[in-house]
């Protein structure tokens, strides 16, 4: 799996771009993130204890990595063996979305490097993958949760470059959410329904605690969390 995970995704320093610029960015990140007390948590996490520590940006990035892993593993299962009652064109939408989630997962995995936390194993056994209705319902839930998660965690991000990345990803998650909702309820108000957009025209913003509670059933062991 590592082979395909790395694939053509390279550190910029190895490719056409200057290695120096990569190092400069790395140091910039380090300078902003290595606040007193924060780094020791990262090292413990890197040693293999599954802990999301929201005191620093690495906790936020690992949180995003966990969510993207869940989403991508879900779509990989769907695409490997799609429900037989999918309608025309729906598999292509799910395939596209799955490919995006895999890119997000790979991005966070490679960006984090050894600062990546081992997340609990995924458990998708509660989802009936033979049924279009349950697959789309699960996809809708994952995408809406993803949107709310990024919107809610943005305020915790300390480095502008990471906030920028989160912004680039969250709108793609929102595009997914709208598309899935349009598959379920075509040409209605559901794509941005009143169940997710409030009277101010604001989308979901979920705290990490709320998000982890929502997704915990899809992980085999509990997350260890600090800083929320």
């Amino acid at each position, binding site marked *: 799996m590592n082979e395909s995970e790395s694939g053509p*995704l390279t550190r910029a320093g190895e490719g056409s771009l200057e290695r120096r610029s990569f190092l400069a960015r790395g140091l910039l990140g380090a300078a902003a993130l290595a606040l007193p007390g924060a780094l020791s948590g990262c090292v413990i996490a890197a040693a293999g204890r599954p802990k999301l520590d929201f005191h620093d940006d690495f906790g936020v990035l690992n949180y995003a990595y966990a969510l993207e892993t869940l989403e991508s593993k879900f779509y990989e299962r769907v695409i490997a063996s799609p429900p037989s009652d999918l309608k025309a064109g729906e598999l292509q939408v799910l395939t596209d979305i799955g490919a995006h989630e895999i890119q997000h997962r790979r991005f966070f995995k490679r960006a984090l490097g050894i600062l990546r936390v081992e997340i609990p194993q995924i458990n998708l056994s509660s989802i009936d993958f033979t049924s279009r209705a349950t697959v789309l319902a699960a996809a809708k839930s994952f995408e809406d949760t993803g949107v709310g998660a990024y919107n*809610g965690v943005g*305020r915790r991000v300390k480095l502008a470059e990471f906030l920028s990345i989160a912004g680039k990803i969250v709108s793609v998650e929102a*595009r997914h959410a709208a598309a899935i909702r349009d598959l379920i309820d075509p040409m209605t108000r559901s794509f941005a329904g009143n169940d997710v957009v409030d009277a101010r025209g604001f989308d979901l913003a979920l705290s990490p605690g709320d998000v982890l509670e929502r997704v915990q059933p899809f992980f085999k062991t509990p997350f260890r969390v600090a800083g929320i």
Partner: protein
Amino acid sequence: MKSENLMDALDTELAQSMLSRRAAILRGAAASSAVIAGLSMASVPVGLAALATDAHAQGGLPSGIVDILNFALTLEFLEAEFYTKGVESPSLLSGGAREVADQIRIHEVAHVAFLQSALGSKAVTKPTFDFSGGKGRNNGPFGDAFTNPQTFWTLAQAFEDTGVRAYKGQAPNLMGNNDVLQAALQIHSVEARHAAQVRRMRQQKGWITGDSRGDMPPATQAIYEGDDNRFQFILAQSDNANSWTEAFDEPLTKAQVLAIVAPFLT
């Protein structure tokens, strides 16, 4: 696997750099103190209610934030009036299309109201729009926007895809004010939902591939410029997988956005 090992070596190098940087920060190195100061400022909470009702009365919002929110307000004015006119135009929209347009209208009107409330007396007034794209001469290429559904949805896609990139471009500039930032993020993803739905109604994918405008007219190319970026943080993608550029929406600067909407302003 070899490349994996190389990566681990680089990661270790990065971690070691961090350790030494941390020591430098603890010594109060000048280069880091500005960052620390910035972070401290970013952690000061400002209630949304205060933002909406008191902040402007106390002269509270920094001028940089006011400028960004007025920029957003201008775009929301444009969208709100566009969908309001669309929904009010007889025989333009019916059935599901009308439902979708009306739901978007409700959100854009709500965004205008929120931004006006947050800005108070500092809010800009609504500009006069020329939805033909004729800079006020009403003779632009989109003259049938409110009689031809195809033109209407073409413009809708243009405005929504622009809106997503516009908010995205300003998010890092809002980092000093968490509540404004979160509000902007929550509006930003609603614009992305709109964009995806409008694109799907036009038989397009809900996401943007590379910098392709798809079936949109050449005049809209600036909306998609730079969305083919393959460089994210410290990672570059060297293959041509569409999924890499689709997976990351790119920001636009304020200047780029203003150039895009200029034909619709008088």
